[in-house]
């Protein structure tokens, strides 16, 4: 009887859609894999320090914002702040970790976060414009539909305050 109950429970878990790993879980598992490599070979991921954890998953869209994101960029937090991003994508109905990196984008996103704090209720989404090969962010909580370009300063110093003004989507 006990064995039967276990079998039924297992069968239930396998058959239910929510038994499939969700993006948060996939990202967490993937980060553990990267951390193992980083521990043995720090030169591969110099920013990935022991104890790194995942921040919020940011919806990530190519070209236009859809209702349901099929990709997320997870902020990888170290004791020094947001160091990298981990990309997770829905491929063939399965959430799969894709890559870790985007160091400069991570830095810019942390600057966007300072201008538009999560604690004050602002979420952000990232849009990749594949034609222009540029990144944009949008804050859905503000009244006007907006799409603000992310500027990679490179060697040119740019003030953080650059992200406090949003660009209305119509002007983009």
């Amino acid at each position, binding site marked *: 009887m006990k064995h039967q109950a276990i079998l039924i429970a297992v069968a239930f878990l396998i058959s239910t859609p929510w038994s499939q790993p969700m993006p948060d879980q996939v990202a967490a598992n993937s980060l553990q894999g*990267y951390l193992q*490599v980083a521990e*043995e*070979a720090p*030169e*591969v*991921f*110099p*920013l990935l320090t022991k104890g790194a954890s995942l921040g919020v998953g940011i919806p990530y869209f190519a070209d236009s914002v859809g209702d349901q994101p099929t990709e997320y960029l997870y902020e990888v937090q170290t004791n*020094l*702040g947001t*160091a990298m991003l981990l990309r997770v994508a829905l491929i063939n109905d399965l959430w*799969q*970790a*894709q*890559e*870790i*990196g*985007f*160091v*400069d*984008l991570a*830095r*810019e996103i942390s600057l966007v976060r300072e201008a538009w704090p999560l604690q004050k209720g602002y979420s952000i989404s990232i849009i990749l414009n*594949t*034609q*222009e*090969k*540029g*990144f944009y962010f949008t804050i859905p909580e503000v009244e006007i539909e907006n799409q603000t370009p*992310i500027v*990679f*300063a*490179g*060697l*040119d*110093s*740019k*003030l*953080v305050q650059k992200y406090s003004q949003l660009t209305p989507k119509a002007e983009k």
Partner: protein
Amino acid sequence: MKQAFLSLFLSLTLLSQSWGATLFAPVHYQERSNWDWAALCQTILDVYGLYITQTEIATWATPTNTNTGTYVSGFTTVPDRKGIDLILAHFKNISSTYLARSLSEIEVASYLTQGKLIVAGKGNGIDIIYGYRAGYVSSITPWPGFGASALPYSTYLNEYGYSWQETLIIDSPRTARSSRYIVESSVPRTYATFAVDKLTINDGVKVYANATTTTSYGSIGSGWYNTIPNLFTNGINLGANAYVGTTTSTGPVLMRSNSVINGNLTMLNTSTLTKQAGARVTGSTLQQNLPYLQPAFGTNEFAGVAQTTVNIEPDKARLYLSPGSYWIYNIKQRSPVRLRAGDYFFKDLNCDGCTFEVDASAGPVRVYVSGTLLWTGTLVYAAGATNRFMLAYLGKETTYINGYLDGTIIAPDAHLVLGQASAKNYTGMYVARDLTVHQYSVVRFRPFTFE
């Protein structure tokens, strides 16, 4: 069957042997929407010691269109487009092998272990593969914001749904860069003291803006550059009662009691500023992105140089050295060495109380040391301007400058220590991976004239 086992054995052996293949490759983002190939060529040429702009590359490779794509290999004449293999051969005589396919995981590991970068052509652009480790591929995508990333090989094969279709293996041996290139491409020229990682200014140190002032203070800073940029350095530790000018830091800044930054403090993260009692910043505290620097990589000036040790005993007659490469020089007290305009390369230089006389009347004097540098000597200017002497240490050992050396000192990959002994006055530019200025030293900014 036996062959399959042998193949599997060889594969596993190769993978285990190739466990450490991560090559140096600086990230360059494409400056125009179709210039991923130009940025990629810039990265590879940079690795081979040639720094040129994407515009220069495109002017030669695609002269009839200022923003267009080109090929991994080959060329067309109408329109005029030359492939990456031709570009690399043209600018730096770099040889490469083209394959109209992707590489297997074993091949990726193998080529990287041989020190060969790999260009991967995909449906949506091109990448450079610079690392492989335990199933993970490290690559650079030149799109702004992407940069360096790491992902499982199986994912890399079909990332974003675009398959890896063609390959260019960069065959030429990676040559060491010239000392001058390393130093001059990586040195910020507006700071009196700059540490790539950790800058320690001890108690009572004063950093002045020029050779004569006692009221204007010189700039200091810290920052870092690497394959994957490490924005977070050990920052700056400013001792009690130290006085410095405008300060920038990608890492945390600790201002000990009564230390003063005369001017603005610019940081990547202003929340990592710690001020003890009485410490003050006279200007604003700003948050900005900051420049990165390059660490040093091997030099190549010693090919064919006789590996002899030259010992010059105390009180010897003046030695006139011509620009060129030397092996080990041990120069004792009161023995003067006259240097004229040009570049000098020493494997080891031990100046034990010696005197360097600089004749810079015909141009700057640059001294590069790649092994060990010991300096307890004196530097005097016999002729020419006093901003024309530079000592560059390209090794990794902690190096103490315990004598009078009024000139610029660059040590991109070492810990440089100034003012530990009685000599406390320095005039020039001081740039190192880590830099410590001991207490009550005075540093005066006098920029080296690089030209």
